């Protein structure tokens, strides 16, 4: 099953050692097939609101800096516990911060008999 890990808040200046450790971690996870995609996000972005057939586009930022999602990782894990354990490793490298781990539903979660 896939999980989306996101982190919030502004990024304090990461030191070189942390960056190296994180780089090695990302590389290991990618090669193991656990990490499917990862990236950092621009602060703010563009807000889209669709209401009664009308679409409004506004430039960000919108939320407080510490509430905005700043990075994500899409991971493939056997269980929620495994995803959490991977997230733990991530946070042990990063240090202080806050984020979420959410299940990404796939075809296997479709209602009915569904694929396989």
């Amino acid at each position, binding site marked *: 099953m896939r999980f989306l890990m996101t982190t919030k808040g502004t990024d304090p200046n990461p030191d070189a050692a942390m960056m190296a450790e994180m780089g090695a971690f990302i590389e290991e996870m990618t090669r193991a097939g656990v990490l499917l995609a990862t990236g950092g996000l621009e602060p703010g972005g563009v807000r889209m609101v669709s209401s009664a057939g009308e679409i409004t586009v506004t430039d960000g930022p919108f939320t407080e800096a510490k509430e905005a999602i700043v990075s994500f990782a899409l991971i493939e894990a056997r269980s929620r516990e495994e995803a959490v354990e991977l997230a733990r490793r991530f946070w042990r490298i990063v240090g202080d911060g806050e984020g979420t781990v959410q299940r990404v539903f796939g075809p296997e979660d479709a209602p009915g008999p569904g694929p*396989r």
Partner: protein
Amino acid sequence: MTSLDAHAVVDAVWKMESARIVAGLVRMVGDVGLAEELAQDAVLAALEQWPEAGVPDNPGAWLMTIAKRRAVDHLRREERRDRGQERLAHDLVTSVDDGARDVDDVLGALDGEVGDDVLRLMFVSCHPVLSTEARVALTLRLIGGLRTDEIARAFLVSESAVAQRIVRAKRALADAHVPFEVPSGPERAARLSSVLEVIYLVFNEGYSATAGDDLMRPSLCLEALRLGRVLAELTPDEAEVHGLVALMELQQSRSAARTGPSGEPVPLHEQSRGRWDPLLIRRGFAALLRAREAGAPLGPYVLQAAIAACHARAATPEETDWPQIAALYEALVRVLPTPVVQLNRAVALAMAYGPRAGLTLVETLTGEPALKGYHLLPAVRGDLLARLGRHGEARAEFDRAASLTRNAAERAVLLRRAATCAEEAGRANTAKAVKAVNAGRTGQAGPAETVNAAKAGKSGDTAEAGEGGPAETAGQPPRAAGRADSAKRVTPAATPGGRTGGRRAADAGVTLGAAMRLFLARPGLSADTVRSYNQTLSRLCRHLGEDIPLRDMTSHLAAEVFAAAWGTAAGATWNRHRAALRSFASWAAEHGWAAASLAAPLDRRPEPRARTRPIDRSLLRGLWERPETPLRERTLWLLLYESAAPAEWALSLDVEDLDLPGMRGEVRTRGHWLRWQSGTAALLPLLVGDRRRGPLFLADRRPGPGRMPAVADLCPHTGRGRLSYERAEYLFKRATRDLDPEGGGYTLHRLRHSRLAHLGEDGWSAPMLMSLSGHASARSLHGFVRVPRPADTVA
């Protein structure tokens, strides 16, 4: 503290760490069974302590430490009990007992080799002294960390049976004194293929899962992928390992599309390709690239992965490169010469070159003892016959196939096709060609409708079966069910041959069209030869009409067509077509249908030497090592060589397009990733320096005010412009002037093509080169790929 159930956490951590923990323990105690018991002690300890004390900060390390301490305790006891006995970890124990080192130091020293230990463990758990079933169970247990009950559910057997299997396997390993090592020499290849076989068996067991099955079954696919990726990590130089990973990634990418809403299998050509997982496809391609980088001769897994890649690359079934697939099957037949692979190849040939080409090969298989009783042989044969308009014979084949299959749904489909053929055969004198197509359509709609009624336990995405699936690799007979629509795969009326094949030569004499089809359907022709000949003869058919009797086709007419079609073409092209016609003419003359002198007026033309001969590898190596070459040029040249990408793509790269850890950069205008290797990777950080944005390759000077480039072509840091193609070309020419025997220096284009040529020499196939280099057409790569070419067309 997390609210997650502590038991579930222990289980998750154990699954992540079991391979490393057990492998480390086997190294210490020298016995797989004992190592696993000690590891289980650690798991029990975790189950006792974590619910009370909370999950430790680093649960994996916690388990590892406890397990190793148990092992040391055990060895100490052993040591005391039997001082004289030599054990694998004798030195370790004495050093601990001497107090020379702390236990943790010893354990730390062991950690460095954990990866090697995991590899050793994989080889041991797939050891040939064990039965295949035992290898599978033990591997899932030790490397995958699966519990006995999970393995039992996954394989639809009782838990006690699995437990028995594992106990016996451990005993067999101990009795045979199987050493804990990675085999070397010739043994290594055989043992590695046993490991690959086990992993692929696990994958296929998961792949054959259907709706309503225990969820453990489909998850076997992921487990196998995980095992494969771990193995690939540990044996990066083994092409076949990457090939297997690529094959599994590509097959898995279709998992959402290969079953319909009611759980019925959907054959490949009917799958909604938008539901294929692009992430996994990309991973599959990446693994295939690594396989090619490993450079060994192409093995069965790499070839099967390359076939799967052909399918993955086609946005619609019609875009499938069947000639390439047929060529890959031909290569596969050479390394995996099983009748089932041959049958699959026949299907590919039929798709590529029309039913007759496929039928010729199928005919050679009818005597195969291994295919006796295999219903797909008559099913495929019947389908090809039907497409050729030979409905009476087709009907008999479908009837036979129906009597051979044990799957009710399949039988219904086959009987329906037999009935359709009977009708067709009854209606004489109508346009057979049209009907052949209709018959095909009826069949196409069949399996998908009916298979959902079947228990269809093994009905999978039969494209895989058609492509040379697991069973063949494992050297077992293919499973009867689950291949319901291999026969169907030949039905889409995508090939023109399907329409015209039904026509017969008129009594007035053999027609050009009929003779051409017979000529191309001869056994023993390679796919490439068929393709090449087909080009020539189709052109003749187009100009002269395929109904022209051969005896009316004079050498004068042939010469006119040649002049019109290829009069201005390159000498090599002209000569290739000429050779094809000569071959055709002498064959037709043997049958008394035409004069052998048909091609006589056509003179052979001189062939100037190839435009882009590759630059010698050693010259290039010397070039990279020249100390005086500036960093920018050195990086650009290496990048062009390693990525085999067009120079304008490399020059268009911006710093922000680079994915340095991934060793790739995105050519955004093309949506193509340019991939490089270690040489470029070492230089790029130096070239980029502190720059964050802007063109990667910069001109030497800032642009003059009169020639200000676009903002995107300006470096925001230095104000310099993007290096131009002309300048880059000039610099390369100047640098290589002394290497070029003609004295003009080499072009960047030539550098790129040298790489392709070198890779082609190393055995890369067209799809691989295409995905690396961004060539849109396989044809432009033909000179680089060592697909067997017909000897007489090259001469």
